[in-house]
């Protein structure tokens, strides 16, 4: 059975503008899948629906056989998925370390455990020296690495990345791709990345193309 099963997924805004139309998609555990398409093709909406940030008009998203719904949203976001955003979405006034620790608040980890784990991850992405730096004083590449640490800190089975390199320069982009690849190799988890960047798509094991809210035939 596929880890991620999407069946007949449709979503429109205001009941008029169709963002996704009847999308079917299966992704197996351990796959690194790129959702490729131009702006407005529905990539971000699809990721948002998979993440349970919003819900479809029709169809369903199931992860490991469990349909994503509002009732289990908290547990799902905490234990099943990790999300990496294009604009990092860090709490700007907190430090790199604190941003990662916040994601562990809903877990049973003790404060010192959270702190140590955050420091450890920051060390792994080469940011040990920047751990106590306020987020808004970090460079774009550093912020995205902090956001990456936050997205994987609770060891999600499924990592969702929405244009993760969209705000990065080439060097930072390559660095992030390397981190994602390394994490995939080490953890054997699943990654779904929405992108319009061919470099990112080529780094993935499978590419799914979206246009005008519909999946294009492979």
């Amino acid at each position, binding site marked *: 059975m596929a880890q991620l099963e999407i069946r007949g997924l449709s979503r429109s805004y205001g009941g008029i503008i169709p963002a996704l139309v009847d999308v079917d998609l299966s992704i197996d555990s351990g796959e690194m899948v790129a959702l490729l398409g131009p702006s407005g093709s529905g990539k971000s909406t699809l990721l948002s629906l998979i993440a349970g940030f919003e819900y479809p008009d029709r169809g369903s998203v199931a992860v490991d056989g469990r349909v994503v719904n509002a009732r289990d949203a908290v547990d799902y976001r905490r234990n099943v998925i990790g999300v990496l955003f294009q604009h990092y979405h860090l709490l700007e006034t907190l430090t790199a370390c604190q941003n990662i620790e916040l994601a562990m608040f809903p877990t049973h980890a003790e404060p*010192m455990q959270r702190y140590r784990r955050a420091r450890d991850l920051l060390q792994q992405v080469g940011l040990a020296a920047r751990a106590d730096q306020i987020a808004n004083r970090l460079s774009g590449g550093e912020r995205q690495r902090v956001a990456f640490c936050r997205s994987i800190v609770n060891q999600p089975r499924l990592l969702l990345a929405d244009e993760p390199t969209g705000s990065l320069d080439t060097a930072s982009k390559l660095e992030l791709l390397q981190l994602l690849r390394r994490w995939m190799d080490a953890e054997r988890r699943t990654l779904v990345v929405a992108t319009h960047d061919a470099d990112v798509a080529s780094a993935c094991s499978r590419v799914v193309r979206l246009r005008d809210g519909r999946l294009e035939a492979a």
Partner: protein
Amino acid sequence: MITHRREGYRLRHLVWDGLRLRPLRAFAAILSIAVTLAASLTLIGVSESLETSVAEGYAARKVDLIVMQAGKSNPLTSRIDTALVPAMRALEQVARVQPLLVDTLLLNSDQSILVYGWEPTDPDLRLTDRPNAPLRTDEVLIGKTASRVADLSPGDSVTLNLTEFVIADTFEANTFAESGTLFMRLDALQPLIGAENRVTFAFLELVPGLSAARQDELRLEIERTMPGTTVIDAAEFIADHQLAAALRGVSRITLFTNAFLASLIVGTLMVLTVSERRRDIAILRAVGWSSWRIAHLILFETALLAVAAALLGASIGWIGLEMALSHLFSLGFYARSMLTPTMVAGAALAVIIVALLGSAIPVYHALGIRVADAIRNE
């Protein structure tokens, strides 16, 4: 940051960091809630203190029961026959009877003043400079507040209902209300207001050790044998004391108004904070924070503001009350502070509860933030 390193980042650190980011707003919230609490405490304190002062005044006079005309909602309009006084004195459970006539008279043709008429031998008519000589029928005693307000001193002449009297002395009032009155002989006041053979009340001091049941029996006996009278105990009478009751009412209304205001202040400021932190809240939800944890964050921040406001407000309120009572004392109102640490703690706790209630709207607002919308609109 050093603290966080030692013990890890906790919710309280997040709350504290949030408050530090908006110091002016936090200060404004604390100050405004503190002022509402201080105002409430001062007013309640004054009301309680004055009410207690009335109670202590009657206790000092050893008044257990008060006989007055039945069916009078305003006690000052009560009139009972003086012939009933000897009958009351004849009752074996009664140790002492103080008949009293009260009326409002025109002082020097331009202001009203409450005048009490006591029996000539009543200890309330004692004179400091000639203690063994009774007050004459053309003399009055003036309370210290009345003396100050009307600028009258012993030796001055005054007219009451166009009849001339001489102020013989000032007196220390048993209660704050009496301090603004004149005392005179009952047999001088009765013809002055056309109330011959009439008094307003009879204050009864009962023999010591009389049980509550025997007191009730006595009340019934008086009401039965002296038709047209009603007998109330001092506590009921004090509860009906017009000035004390008015103050109590005002203080309660103010308390509710201030509680509503405090709640509104907290609610408004926290709604503003939640609106500004919409994106942050959406991020927290995106990483798995539950509704309860988000609510906890807001409630914690509110509670922190409220505790600071409660401490500040209680301090200001206490000082305010002392100042108010000191001012009242200078006017002749002898009320001592009845504000206890328990009352202050209760008021502070009430502020915290009110503030938390006030944060219901911001919590609701925060829980309504949809992750997709908040993040997409960034």
